[in-house]
């Protein structure tokens, strides 16, 4: 398990992914911030389903979610 810094990836509706915790298995925990304020929201992301499990504001963009997943899959490969 490790922490990965994400470069404020736009995942739709003014929500940006800022960091991730890689866990055992297909689930990662994503920390996000919104463009409305400094509140940090966390949601589990199923890397295989390409689906956020816990509700975040608004709608997710497919491109943004894929970008996060690609980044984390590469990070997992490098972490071994």
């Amino acid at each position, binding site marked *: 398990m490790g922490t990965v810094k994400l470069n404020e990836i736009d995942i739709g509706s003014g929500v940006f992914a800022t960091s991730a915790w890689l*866990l055992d*298995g297909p*689930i990662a925990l994503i920390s996000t911030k919104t463009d409305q304020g400094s509140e940090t929201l*966390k949601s*589990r992301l199923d890397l*295989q*389903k*390409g689906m956020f499990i816990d509700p975040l504001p608004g709608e997710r963009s497919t491109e943004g979610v894929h970008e996060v*997943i690609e980044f984390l899959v590469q990070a997992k490969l490098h972490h071994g």
Partner: protein
Amino acid sequence: MELGMARFSVVTYLVAHTFGLGGRVATRSQVPTLYKGAGPGTHWHATNAKLVGFTLPPMVGTLNAIVRHISAYSFPSAYLSFSTSFAVARSYALAGPGGVASMANPGFVYEIDLSSMATFPPLRDPIEQISKGFNGSFAHSHNGSGSLIAEIAQGATVFSQAQQSGGGMLAPAVSSQLRALIFAIRDAEILVEGQIPSGAVVKRHDVF
């Protein structure tokens, strides 16, 4: 008289358990032990289902709702998700909106035994429901190669091209039903359509 009452109970049971989508009825001896993971900050982490049971918002279960629940989003939903695998449930419990589970703030895995209950809500096998739900077509059909299932299960979004009749190569079409089937198998997923009483929740395991 006793025979009549027994017959009435069986009929009531069958009607209750096949209402809605219908499907194979799980008898008491067939009901597996179920597990549900609750990561920190989730509803079932803040609410102790061992005390209050599992509840659902009043929504109607449909085939589309099953596919959506598995492959798109699971809240709100007419179903509660469970797994027959403790390991799968644990993977969902290791984190949540409240952060990563730790000794000080563990995630929970609920263990549920419905077989001890006088009545229990309908259990939906998503494989059966999705497979039989597409009259005239086959939910598991695809035009990809033999590696397609593994690619979907690993989370690929671009799939290997596969040879088609006539020699052409095409990227396969992947339906949401096929994805849902694969992910339901991955998670050993069982859907419950209704409330689960607290008496059926036999243990809440701490995990971190």
